[in-house]
């Protein structure tokens, strides 16, 4: 047994210190299954003090550490890139404090996203960010990845709902970032803003102060089916141009509809449709009584085949069931799923999707699309068999081309899933050597020891622009995205 394993077992006991190969198997990847690496050991702390002790142990032994929530990340964020201690926050699942009057809660990082909303429902409040995995993903993981979700269009990302955090830094020090009454102290830098989305490379948040939102007075959920994705996108364009701000606007293409309808997530979507558009409006009834018919009229102007409005909570749940279960439904198609996460300006959705279809055909891969249409955040999903090396190679190449396309369109390689290990080689598509150098310097301020989740977010110097696997592509895309 290694010194690390001995120390962990002595301090935490065998239930909270996992060291056997069988126990570590579950930690070898997250939702991004292409990259796998087992951690050296897994620790399950329950308090800030225990996390601090673990980080100090890592410092003493020179072992990197990787924080992990529920493992639902889709970019390999919590998967180690070398020997590392995995610090899983699953046992840190207490809602420590709720302040309904001031609209905030303090939680441990292992609190499951939807459990927080359930916990504060008694006050008429909820936690707004709602990733598709919200029934299992954790607030700590959301903070690390700056998670999004269908309701970002109106309510924003995780960063817009995080007010502060107690953070264990990589040298074992503790910092209190932010303030319960606002994200930045009046005389300090917005450290919590920078920390959010740093993918565990700045330290481990052990207490997180989040903003709570009042439940809307009323909700109207509408589903329209169209002959094509183009028509659905055009309807979204009209809605935005009208000045309405729906809470969510989600599109599923035909391949996704069929996968959903053949699965346990069946929602009654019309299988002959080229696309369905799910629009949710929230607010007071007097506003929604005007806005819902307006949206319906816009659907019809763009040739909607069928329009359905949820009459009650059960119907709303059904309409969302297909969208929320889309990724799960695709699990039936092939053993593995690669969920891409590119962003383009919303007005370029149609041309981008056409090119993505062409890329898929060129590589002969099974692809479906479900996306946050209001934000231009695409999720091309590639179903494949990871045991087939040749197919896996085609999938990776197609993914690379799709992300390159998104940047060329003026967008981003990731809207809400993070860089992790998945997109390390694609980062130079968006950022120059100087950009990355400045980011590396900022990271050192939080992680002077370099032990916090090394190998994430910033590519190793050897994979930056000049020496990337795709140097010509990087140079071209950087030039085009500047224009």
């Amino acid at each position: 047994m290694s010194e690390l394993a001995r120390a962990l077992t002595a301090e935490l006991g065998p239930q909270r210190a996992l060291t056997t190969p069988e126990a570590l198997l579950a930690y070898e990847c997250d939702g991004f299954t292409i990259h796998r690496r087992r951690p050296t050991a897994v620790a399950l702390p329950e308090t800030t003090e225990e996390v601090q002790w673990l980080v100090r142990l890592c410092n003493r032994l020179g072992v990197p550490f990787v924080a992990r929530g529920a493992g639902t990340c889709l970019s390999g964020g919590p998967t180690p890139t070398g020997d590392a201690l995995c610090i899983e926050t699953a046992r840190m699942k207490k809602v420590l404090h709720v302040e309904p009057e001031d609209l905030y809660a303090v939680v441990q990082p292992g609190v499951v996203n939807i459990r927080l909303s359930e916990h504060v429902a008694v006050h008429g409040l909820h936690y707004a960010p709602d990733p598709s995995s919200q029934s299992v993903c954790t607030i700590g993981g959301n903070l690390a990845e700056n998670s999004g979700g269908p309701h970002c269009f109106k309510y924003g990302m995780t960063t817009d709902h995080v007010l502060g955090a107690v953070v264990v830094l990589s040298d074992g020090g503790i910092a209190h970032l932010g303030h319960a009454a606002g994200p930045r102290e009046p005389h300090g830098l917005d450290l919590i803003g920078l920390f959010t989305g740093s993918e565990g490379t700045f330290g481990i948040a052990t207490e997180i102060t989040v903003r709570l939102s009042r439940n809307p007075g009323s909700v109207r959920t509408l589903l329209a089916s169209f002959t094509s994705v183009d028509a659905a996108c055009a309807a979204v364009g009209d809605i935005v141009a009208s000045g309405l701000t729906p809470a969510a606007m989600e599109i599923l293409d035909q391949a996704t509809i069929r996968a959903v309808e053949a699965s346990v997530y069946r929602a009654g979507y019309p299988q002959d449709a080229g696309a369905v558009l799910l629009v949710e409006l929230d607010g007071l009834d007097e506003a929604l009584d005007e806005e819902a018919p307006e949206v319906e009229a816009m659907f019809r102007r763009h040739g909607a085949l069928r329009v359905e409005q949820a009459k009650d909570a059960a119907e709303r749940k059904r309409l969302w069931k297909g969208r929320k279960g889309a990724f799960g439904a695709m699990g039936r198609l092939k053993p593995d799923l690669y969920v891409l996460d590119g962003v383009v300006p919303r007005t370029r959705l149609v041309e981008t999707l056409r090119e993505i279809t062409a890329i898929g055909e060129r590589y002969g891969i099974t692809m479906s699309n479900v996306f946050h249409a209001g934000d231009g955040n695409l999720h091309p999903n590639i179903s494949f068999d990871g045991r087939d090396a040749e197919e896996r190679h085609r999938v990776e190449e197609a993914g690379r081309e799709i992300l390159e396309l998104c940047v060329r369109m003026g967008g981003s390689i990731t809207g809400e899933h993070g860089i992790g290990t998945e997109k390390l080689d694609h980062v130079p598509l968006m950022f120059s050597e100087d950009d990355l150098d400045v980011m590396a310097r900022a990271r050192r301020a939080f992680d002077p020891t370099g032990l916090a989740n090394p190998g994430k977010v910033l590519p190793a110097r050897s994979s930056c622009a000049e020496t990337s696997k795709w140097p010509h592509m990087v140079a071209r895309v950087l030039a085009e995205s500047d224009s």
Partner: protein
Amino acid sequence: MTNPTAFDFPVTEVTSVASAAELVELLQGRDPDAPPVRICGTGSRQREVPAPDRPVQAVSLRGLDRITRLDPEDLTCSVEPGLLRADLDSALAEKGLRLVCPRSRGTVGGMFALGREGLPLAPGPLATLGARALLLGMSAVLGEGVAFRAGARVVKSVAGFDLHKLFVGSRGRICAATELHLKLRPMPRAAETFEKVDLEREEALSLFRALRLDDAPPVEVELACQDPSGPFRVRGRFEGAAAVVRSRMQLYRLDATSPREPANPAEDPRERLFGLVPPSSLGALLATLPARTAVWCDGTGGFALRPADEADANAILATLPGVGVSAELDLTIPARRGLGTPRDPGAILVEQRLFAELDPGKVFA
């Protein structure tokens, strides 16, 4: 132009640059022994940030005043930092758009660098659109003259570290922005500004609380008084569907009033304590304040106090931590600007490391 009288601390010279390239050239060619640099726009808000401890070279970015991109259908735009906020608002209004952030004086770059507007903005959904969400990305220059980019131009991106968020509220101490990518919203379909005056303390606090916690809260709401014993004024603004604006005005029996131009707080000779207070602690805060202290606070915790004199300000500063309040002095003499409530030593350490990493030559004052 930068107003040369804006500085109440020694300035060796005011240098204007007209492009990012000029700024890079100026910083790269700078003598290491030269005075530190104070980045400025119009200079209108210099007294809201701590004064430098030695003479500085003021570098004005007011000449970088273009809207470099405006994509109305994508609800985004890019601007240079020297653009006046008022000019941006006019250009956006022509397209039926706006920046969801209270109007402010001076330049857009100064507004974000100061980070006061758009922090706690409003209760309800719009509260999520604070400055950190409005700023999607930026191009900037470090003190050593290295230009870099962070964030993106689209409404969602989590690629790389969000250094642009670090710019918000940094007061020009980390980098000088040369282009800012902003998130926009359509103009509201209806809007109404309201004001109630001559309210007793409990009456004002009760109305303020009810508005904050309403199902369709105003996008801006503020409570103010010239003395903690009253009388109080509650002012705010509803936006959204016409039916909702109408119903809220009726529900709270509010009278419509005209929107106000942003006030110039520097015209008030008293020094100011600017900070954050959890709204539920507002009553407790008021109870601790000496007579003749003017109070202003918004619906999500931002507040400003105007003590009658320095002795009162010092006394208030000593009591604030006890009521969970964080604050800093500004709009006062250089020697007192920046005095504030104690801060977390861990956060201070991280900040010091950030300054050491990103501005090792201590170029920015």
